[in-house]
């Protein structure tokens, strides 16, 4: 499976999920599971770092949107990190830049959480 998932807890109740490779119809269920696990473990504030992601499809977008919604329901938030113009373009053309806060680095995103 061409997806890498690495999760860290820089502080209590806050997680950074760094994704790498392809987030698509095949792999995104694993990302969804990771987000759900964090929420269930009482970690409603998270940063999803897309820096290493080479391919993101609508299924991946759907998982991120679902994560954002569920996080907010628990008074948390889900912020994104992305500096790949190709991936940023997908958020732009789908209008999702209006819904997500997207930062250039995971330090920036953590600051705002």
């Amino acid at each position, binding site marked *: 499976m061409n997806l890498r998932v690495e999760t860290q807890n820089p502080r209590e109740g806050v997680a950074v999920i760094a994704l790498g490779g392809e987030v*698509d*119809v095949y792999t995104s269920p694993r990302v969804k599971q990771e987000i759900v696990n964090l929420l269930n473990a009482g970690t409603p504030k998270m940063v999803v770092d897309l820096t290493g992601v080479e*391919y993101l*499809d609508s299924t991946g977008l*759907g998982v991120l*949107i679902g994560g954002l919604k569920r996080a907010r329901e628990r008074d948390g938030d889900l912020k994104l990190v992305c500096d790949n113009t190709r991936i940023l373009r997908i958020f732009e*053309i*789908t*209008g999702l830049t209006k819904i997500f806060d997207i930062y250039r680095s995971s330090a920036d995103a953590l600051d705002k959480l």
Partner: protein
Amino acid sequence: MSETLPLAEVTLTIPSRPEYVGVARLAILGVASRMRFSYDEVEDIRLAVGEACTNAIDRLNGSGATERPISLTCTIDANRLMIEARSPLASTPPRPRSTEEADLDNLMEGKELSGVLIRILMDEVESEEDASAGIHLLRMVKYVAR
């Protein structure tokens, strides 16, 4: 590639299962990158084809038709690439489309996004159903910039 080459056709058939969508994306990458598309255009085509397969698989999910394959027919011209994605018609009726602005709930599973992306990424998109053959056809065209 020179303009004098005759029309060429590449066809690919994959199982309608998530793990094979990547095969379609790689094959289409090979096709598009041999044409006079820019890097961004090649990526657009790759994403659109991935979405076409993903969309078909989503619709088939749970309908029992997953044993029937998805086929892609690429018709390669000096000036344009046409891709026809044929997938088994889902037995369940298509979900009603949202008429208002996309909201979080509708977008939850990314399903609406698939159609939105395909329409933005490709120059022409047409959808047809052949109920008797049980086939859904999505025809997508991308033109090479002049």
